[in-house]
């Protein structure tokens, strides 16, 4: 085994170069100012103070969290039944359904979001069909609805695939045992299937919540610049304002929030495993 260990070195170098080094840079930028003509950089907390003292930025943060939570919940509500149906279908049909979920992810997200832009337009596909049915044009593009729709659409495959995996890993004989012991289908689902699939739901939550809370091009394209989320503020600091220090500070704040939420979901995961009684 020992000789294989050396094979990890390229990976370690890779990680250091592409993940650790940029993180350290962000850390450095976040706690410094551009400085003046005398000193080049200065240590400071002012970037953080600037963020937390401004109600507008806090509003943006709140809005981002709300949209991300809403996206995650909708993904669970829609994704769970889908995963359940896929896991319980047989042979060809199962592979077809899996393909249907994964094929869209082969296409670039930006392109798919542009497609939604076309469909949600006031004179777009959906409104044309609605108009045909005699229902007046509904304003969809540049609303919160469009932003959440775009996010759910883009991120739901992650949720479905996670839940699907944990459902297929489940031992079917447990369900037979449950019905032997007199549980009806609903009881068997609630007492056996659901708890055993929760680890999948929880890793699905992480995979959906993280990109949703930091997404910037979906609100930009589908929200028409009116739905400024935290990702847009960060993008703006780097690309337009050129204030890398403030941008890094916001990124760091987001990183901390994300780490906390990951810690909490992990705790949940562990707690559930104990309650589930070691089904694995």
């Amino acid at each position, binding site marked *: 085994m020992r000789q294989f260990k050396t094979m990890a070195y390229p990976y370690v170098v890779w990680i250091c170069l592409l993940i650790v080094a940029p993180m350290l840079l962000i850390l450095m930028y976040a706690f410094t100012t551009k400085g003046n003509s005398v000193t080049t950089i200065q240590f400071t907390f002012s970037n953080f103070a600037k963020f937390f003292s401004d109600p507008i930025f806090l509003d943006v943060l709140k809005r981002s969290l709300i949209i991300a939570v809403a996206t995650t919940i909708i993904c669970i509500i829609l994704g769970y039944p889908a995963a359940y149906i896929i896991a319980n279908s047989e042979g060809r049909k199962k592979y077809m359904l899996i393909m249907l979920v994964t094929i869209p992810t082969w296409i670039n997200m930006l392109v798919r979001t542009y497609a939604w832009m076309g469909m949600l337009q006031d004179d777009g596909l959906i409104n044309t069909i609605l108009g045909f049915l005699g229902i007046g044009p509904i304003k969809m593009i540049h609303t919160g609805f469009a932003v959440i729709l775009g996010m759910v659409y883009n991120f739901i495959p992650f949720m479905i695939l996670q839940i699907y995996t944990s459902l297929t890993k489940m031992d079917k004989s447990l369900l037979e045992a449950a019905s032997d012991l007199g549980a009806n289908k609903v009881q068997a689902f609630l007492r056996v299937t659901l708890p055993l699939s929760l680890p999948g739901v929880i890793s699905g939550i992480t995979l959906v919540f993280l990109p949703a809370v930091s997404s910037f091009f979906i609100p930009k394209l589908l929200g*028409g*610049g*009116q739905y400024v989320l935290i990702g*847009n503020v960060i993008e*703006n*600091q780097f690309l337009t*304002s*050129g204030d890398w220090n403030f941008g890094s500070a916001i990124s760091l704040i987001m990183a901390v929030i994300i780490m906390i939420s990951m810690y909490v979901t992990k705790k949940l995961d562990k707690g559930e495993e104990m309650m589930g009684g070691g089904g694995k």
Partner: protein
Amino acid sequence: MKKFISLLAVCAVSVVSLAGCGGSQGSTSSSVDAVEKYGSDTLKLYNWGEYLGEDVISNFEEQFGVDVIVEYFDSNEMMYTKLLSGDSYDVLVPSDYMIERLIKEDRLQKLDLSLIPNMEYLADGVKNLAFDPNNEYSVPYFWGTVGIVYNHNNVPKEVVEEQGYSVLKNTDYKGRIYMYDSERDSFMVALKALGYSMNTENEDEINEAYNWLVELNNTMDPVYVTDEVIDNMAGGAMDMAVVYSGDAAYILSENEDMSYSMPAEGTNIWVDSMVIPKNAENPKLAHEFINYILSYDASYDNSSTVGYASTNKEVLADMSGEGGEYEGNEAYLPRENYEKDEVFNDNEVLRQMLSELWIKVKASQ
């Protein structure tokens, strides 16, 4: 080892094909000559999106036996950030105030005007402007104004002329307007609407303009766009939009319902010019390109496709004159000698305040 080599080959092929994507065909004939003459056969151009005539680049490549790699930006600030992060380009096309800043920060090369004989065709309106008094660093590419394009069937002409920029806050048109997603242009609109200079350094005036824009954001539900405005307004998507004159000229030529107004409160006369940054790898070819863009054919192609006013005086006269492509188009020719119109200067107070305030305007709700 064999595998490794074939992997290398795959990498090499993909690099070559990537380079092929950026440039284009037509460099077969004389690329060796180009290397001899200019030191390299690749030109890196960093230009605005939707800013080139259909055949301008391919003709240049064919004529001089070189490859042109074009990258696009949609704001001066974005271009500046990219330049600062160390990317090297041979020709940039920033606007007036950004050129002033780049000159101040010593990031541009002085031009060798003997290599740009087509300077003699430069239109009078864009010669020797304040940001580069003797055209030592920059050669104008396009110029124009900023104004309001409106659908005259839905918004009467009298209303637009009478209310000026304030028509953008007229709640009759709530949810029916596009704002340009650029801090400079939006603050220009607000400052002019309030009767201030758009080059103000007075923080109270800037804050007043900020509140004007926040109020607009909260009462009018505007959509912030950049180049999408061109196709969307040509398709009649909204009633009003703040646009650059060239985009307006194109929109007007595509859609008869649209009109253009340069408000009486004054507007921004802007000039986008070609410059060569200090870190350019191929300045000789860059001079050749600048000279080429100023030529009648290239400038005509650019102006005719994109709709902005040419900086070649002969093209300008032919386009707007009798039988010209933009004859009678109220957006094509920039307004000259109107006292309330201004050119942007680079001033640090305004620059820093705007970049902080603009995202807050859009984020307020």
